[in-house]
């Protein structure tokens, strides 16, 4: 068995890994004399993070909101749909292929239609992020529900439990940690989805990191585009951590404590 690392050591290593990558990148850019318009050095990106901070922050607030609301929507609706599909073979047969098929629709095809319906605000972006994140949540939750021991439900029946009570005591607790796991898988693609969704256009003053990346590349400010990407990456790490924490607090049984007394 692997020994678990001390949490402080784990965080330190988690920072050290990216730092090593950044150091190698810095060395490569300096030694090979790479054009900063193609690939800026980490120090240039850092400078942009400081210089353009208010611009970046405003854009982040928009994108962050899109990602979190989209993810939350996917979590609630995805878990709900998974439970419906678990309960009804008809719903499952009807919607199963659809859930998978919608995954295959490229965002640039989807975005204009949604913008047409929902306008240039954050609405269509949230919907796109939700659609993209929906799939891992549904699949993961459904999988967990399928693995629930059917004898648990039968035992509850002998205690006189109704279908609703079995849902409350058996299916819902089984679905919860799985839905959160699905959301964890979805976090990284949520950021990408938000960026692509923004390409379809936004209102003045509600431009997120996606549009910022686009215009930065257009004006050859590649360092600013990378600064935006850096923010997206850090945000993804933090969101995943928050979801892991939520899982531990809301579903402690799904997290076997190492060294717990047996």
């Amino acid at each position, binding site marked *: 068995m692997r020994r678990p690392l001390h949490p402080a050591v784990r965080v330190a290593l988690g920072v050290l890994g990216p730092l090593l990558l950044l150091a190698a990148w810095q060395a490569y850019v300096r030694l090979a004399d790479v054009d900063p318009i193609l690939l800026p050095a980490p120090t240039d990106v850092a400078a942009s993070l400081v210089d353009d901070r208010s611009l970046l922050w405003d854009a982040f607030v928009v994108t962050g909101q899109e990602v979190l609301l989209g993810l939350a929507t996917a979590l609630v609706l995805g878990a709900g749909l998974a439970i419906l599909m678990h309960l009804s073979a008809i719903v499952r047969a009807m919607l199963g292929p659809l859930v998978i098929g919608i995954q295959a629709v490229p965002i640039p095809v989807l975005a204009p239609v949604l913008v047409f319906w929902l306008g240039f605000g954050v609405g269509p972006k949230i919907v796109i992020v939700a659609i993209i994140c929906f799939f891992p949540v549904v699949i993961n939750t459904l999988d967990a529900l399928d693995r629930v021991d059917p004898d*648990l439900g039968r*035992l509850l029946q*002998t*205690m*006189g439990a109704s279908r609703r009570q079995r849902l409350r*005591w058996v299916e819902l607790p089984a679905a919860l940690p799985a839905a959160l796991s699905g959301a964890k898988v979805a976090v990284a693609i949520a950021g990408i989805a938000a960026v692509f969704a923004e390409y379809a256009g936004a209102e003045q003053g509600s431009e997120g990191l996606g549009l910022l990346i686009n215009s930065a590349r257009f004006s050859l400010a590649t360092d600013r585009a990378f600064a935006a990407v850096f923010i997206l990456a850090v945000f993804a790490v933090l969101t995943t951590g928050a979801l892991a924490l939520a899982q531990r607090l809301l579903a*402690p*049984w799904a997290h076997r404590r190492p060294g717990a007394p047996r």
Partner: protein
Amino acid sequence: MGYPGGSVRVQSPPSGPAAARPLTARGIVRRFGDLAVLDGVDLDVAPHETVALVGPSGCGKSTLLEMVCGLQAPDAGTLDAAPAALMPQRDLLLPWLDARDNVALPLRLAGSGRREARAAADALLDRVELGRFARSRPDELSGGMRQRVSFLRALATERELLCLDEPFGALDAITREELRHWLAERLEERPRSVLLVTHDVEEAALLGDRVIVLGPRPAGVVARISVDAGPARRREATDPAVVDARRRIHDALRTAMRGDEVAAT
């Protein structure tokens, strides 16, 4: 799909006249497709009596308990049972609930509030000195501890008839013996009518007031043995009456199995 001929009556609590028998089964037949499992089983459990049910693996013991608990119906025969609590072959504790909430579950399902149900569960756990495990989840408990919690959950239903399906089947010999004593104590404190499935002959002789031996599939009753060894709590494996009961159970099983071999050739 119907159950031709089979009839089930669940006594409504309080179960009729005070002396009503918690379980009366007559001519129980159960088939799964072409597989005839039970073939005309008669079985009674008197109030506060422990009836041990022994038989070869796969002869339909769990199936019989499920019928008594209302999870399936017989294909023929009549079954008249008081509301029964099941302690399943595997503990089947809910992994997301701690020991206390698992014990409280039947009360919650019957409509008690959380606080009230927890207080009752705590009382049950405390009385058997398991209070310090109240907040442990099943994955933090040993196998023996999980079985105790599972048993207390069945007790918490307050149902007159307890159906215990190999309650100690998955345990090592020492824990098994420990739990057997523990169970006898619990039943002495608060007598219930018990239908106990086991394939441990000694366990049947030590806990049962009567032992019903089933033959191989399609199973019928091959022997009914009463154990005149006093209350289960005070029995020892070496008591002459226990030794005698063990021998008779063994003989009945062996004869039934041999008959099976003869029939197969």
